[in-house]
C-alpha cells in the first residue's frame, strides 16, 4: 500500500488549479497544462470511485459486523 491519503489528492488538485490560473503563461504552456489537468481529472475520478467503494465496505462492516467479513476480503487483511 502506498502512503498517499485523500488530502494529498486534494493538494495535487489545488496545485494544478493554481498553475492553470497563472497569468504569465504562453499559449503552448497553457495547452500543456490543460492536457495535464484533463489527465488529472480522469485519474482523480477513478481514485474517488475507489474511495467510495472503500467507504461503502466500511459502512457495511459497521452496520452488520463480523458476519459480513467473508464478503469483504480486503477489509481487515490489508490494514
Amino acid at each position: 500500500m502506498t502512503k498517499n491519503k485523500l488530502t494529498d489528492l486534494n493538494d495535487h488538485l489545488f496545485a494544478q488549479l493554481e498553475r492553470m490560473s497563472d497569468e504569465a503563461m504562453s499559449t503552448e504552456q497553457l495547452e500543456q497544462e490543460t492536457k495535464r489537468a484533463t489527465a488529472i481529472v480522469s485519474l482523480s475520478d477513478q481514485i474517488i470511485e475507489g474511495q467510495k467503494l472503500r467507504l461503502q465496505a466500511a459502512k457495511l462492516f459497521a452496520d452488520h459486523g463480523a458476519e459480513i467479513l467473508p464478503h469483504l476480503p480486503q477489509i481487515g487483511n490489508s490494514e
Partner: protein
Amino acid sequence: MKGKAISYTELELAFVSVRRDLPRRELHRQFQRTFGRPEITVDHLKSLCTRQGWKTGRDGRFVPGQVAMNKGKSMPFHPNSARTQFKPGREPHNTKYLGHRRISKDGYVEVSVAETNPHTGYGRRYVQEHRWLWEKANGPVPDGHCLKCLDGDKTNTDPANWEALPRALLPRLNGRFGRGYDDAPAELKPTILAIAKLEHQAREAKKVK
C-alpha cells in the same frame, strides 16, 4: 337575383362619397335631410359605402399620448361585494410575521424580511435565507454564479456552508454527467468539488484560444 337594386343618382353618390368619413348614422341623417328618400335605411347606405370601398379612415386604435377613456373614473363595484372587502388596516387571519420561515418546493429555506415586495407593494417579502445571509456576509453573488450548498443539506443556511460557483460547474457535480456530489460521503465532497473545479478551469482555458 333577389329584390331590385336601389338606384342612386350621380349627385347622391357624390354626396355620400365626400362625406365617407362620417359615422354612418350621421351620414344617413344628412342624406335624408338633403334628398328625402325614406325607403333608404342606414344599412342601405352602409352597404353602398362597403361596395364602393369608401372607408371612414378610423381603425379604433389608440394613438400615442391618447388619454384612456376611464381616466380619473373610479372602478365600479357592487355594494354587496364591497361590504365583505378588507377595510384599510385590517389583515387576513393567516398573515405571517417578520422572520417567518418556510421550506420552498425546491427544498430551500425562505424567510420573510422587511423589504418591499416588488410584485405586490407589500411591506414584507420572502427571500431565500441562505442567499440573504451569504450576501450580507460576502456581498452580491457574481454574475453567472450561484450558491451551492457544500454539505448537501439545503436547510443549513450558515454562509460557511455555501460557496459561489460558476453555473457551468454545476453539471460536473450532479446530474446525468455529474459525480453524485450531493449523495457522496462527506469525506469525499471536498475532493469531488476540487476535481469539478479543475475540470471547469481546463474547459475554460480551452475556450479562450
